[in-house]
């Protein structure tokens, strides 16, 4: 495909381009909204998982077990199944089970346990000695979380955010099955169902660029906050 051919194709397919722009927007909405809500719930959940561990700051074996089981259930359901299984919940929350807003519900619920585990892992990297030092200084548990654990784990948490957002880009493609729209949906409808390889290639290229951007931004931020 020569350069001229691309230009001609571009001029002849304004409708398709509008579609690609609007579906990129839908993808961004789905990924970042579910990512954001996912972190709002997932970070405290990850913190709680970490603190309730044996010898943790707020050791509680039963709480840890319950949270662990819930998170594992969330993690073990394949996303495509979660998407369908959650239709009643989605309908209850959004009022409809079709559309971008509807897709955000299962994406968020899928993201929460994923984020919780990643945050738990990031907190695990914080040396136990720092918590001990803070305790010796007379820090209360909430102060330890706010002033020691979270700031020290920040590089790991940003890294977790990057991984989550990239994963959500992939998951959002499946949201097409509930009419969620987005680039993945366009790719499947045009590329797979209509055998239009060009459109599929374009969506793939846009998705690759999107993921690269998210990853580069994430890496940059980690570098900025990591003083270890």
């Amino acid at each position, binding site marked *: 495909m020569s350069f001229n051919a691309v230009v001609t194709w571009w001029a002849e397919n304004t409708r398709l381009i509008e579609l690609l722009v609007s579906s990129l927007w839908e993808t961004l909405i789905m990924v970042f909204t579910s990512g954001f809500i996912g972190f709002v719930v997932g970070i405290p959940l990850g913190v709680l998982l970490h603190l309730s561990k044996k010898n943790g700051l707020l050791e509680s074996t039963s709480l840890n077990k319950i949270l662990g089981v819930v998170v594992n259930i969330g993690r073990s359901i394949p996303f495509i199944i979660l998407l369908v299984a959650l239709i009643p919940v989605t309908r209850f929350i959004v009022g409809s089970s079709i559309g971008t807003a509807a897709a955000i519900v299962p994406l968020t619920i899928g993201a929460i346990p994923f984020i919780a585990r990643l945050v738990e892992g990031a907190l695990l990297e914080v040396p136990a*000695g720092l918590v*001990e*030092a803070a305790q010796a*200084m*007379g820090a209360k548990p909430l102060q330890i979380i706010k002033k020691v654990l979270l700031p020290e784990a920040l590089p790991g948490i940003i890294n977790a955010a990057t991984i989550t957002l990239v994963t959500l880009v992939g998951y959002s493609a499946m949201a097409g099955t509930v009419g969620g729209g987005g680039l993945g949906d366009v790719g499947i409808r045009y590329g797979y169902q209509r055998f239009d390889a060009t459109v599929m290639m374009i969506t793939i290229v846009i998705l690759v660029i999107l993921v690269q951007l998210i990853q580069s931004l994430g890496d940059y931020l980690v570098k900025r906050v990591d003083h*270890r």
Partner: protein
Amino acid sequence: MIEIKDVNKVFYQGNKAINALSDINLTIEQGSIFGVIGSSGAGKSTLIRCVNLLERPTTGEVLLDGVDLTKLSDQELTNTRRKIGMIFQHFNLLSSRTVFNNVALPLELAGVSKSEIKTKVEDLLALVGLAEKRDVYPANLSGGQKQRVAIARALASDPKVLLCDEATSALDPATTISILELLRKINKELNLTILLITHEMAVVKGICQEVAIIGGGKLVENGLVGDIFAHPKTELARDFIRSTLDLSIPADYQERLHSTRVENSYPLIRLEFTGASVDAPVISHVAREFNIDISILSSNMDYVGGVKFGLMLAEFIGPDACAEKAIEYLKQQKIELEVLGYVI
């Protein structure tokens, strides 16, 4: 003043109980520097963690100025801990905070105002000699500088007591000396009680007035540093002092060592000087008096609290009978001798 009364600490490994501390009693006077020395696994770390209740004693009392910490509520304990500073072997500085903000942390926790924090932290950084490093992150500091920051941080809330958990064990000897000097300085200037635990004899010798030897979770002996090193009363204390001084026979000597005297061989002797030994220049005296030559192989002598003590490995070169007499004489001077063998 810190009083540790009948403290026991039991850990459970599965169903197996491990007595980390057994019936520990210690009194540490306000303004003194008290050392607890012991080999690894002796219970030192558990003991120092019992003082600020990072480890809660299974039984017993920990009194700070007459107040039993084990009976305080969480809130009271938090406030009391602000009066007990602590520094650690691995410094435990927050990597996400600059030097300034690390030192400011205890003040932030206590809700001190920003302007007060600024003056206080700058004073402390000047005290530990790191004023120009205020905006540097700990990752860019040397070990000694990190420990200085940790000391400044521990002093931020004007504590009465400073706990030092192997504070110099990760530092090289020169840095260790400079950190000990700093500790001595703050002890004098602030009348701060310092309790330190270590496995290094040099640290205790360097700054402690009193020392306790701990082994197998039991307090073996305690008293003034000079007394303990010069006149250890218990076998364990003696073993410990000896182990820190231990001299081993070089490998090539070991090969040439015979258990019985053969032609052209000389005795290899270990001499142990204790507080009981006669304080006189015995080595040169013996050489002159008994007409032998003494070749010192290695020696580890120390001087603490007016007493010389230590170990020496030496060959006594000369006729049989002379060497025997020399050994006899040295024994009379209360120097403990052991003939390790005969070197060809």
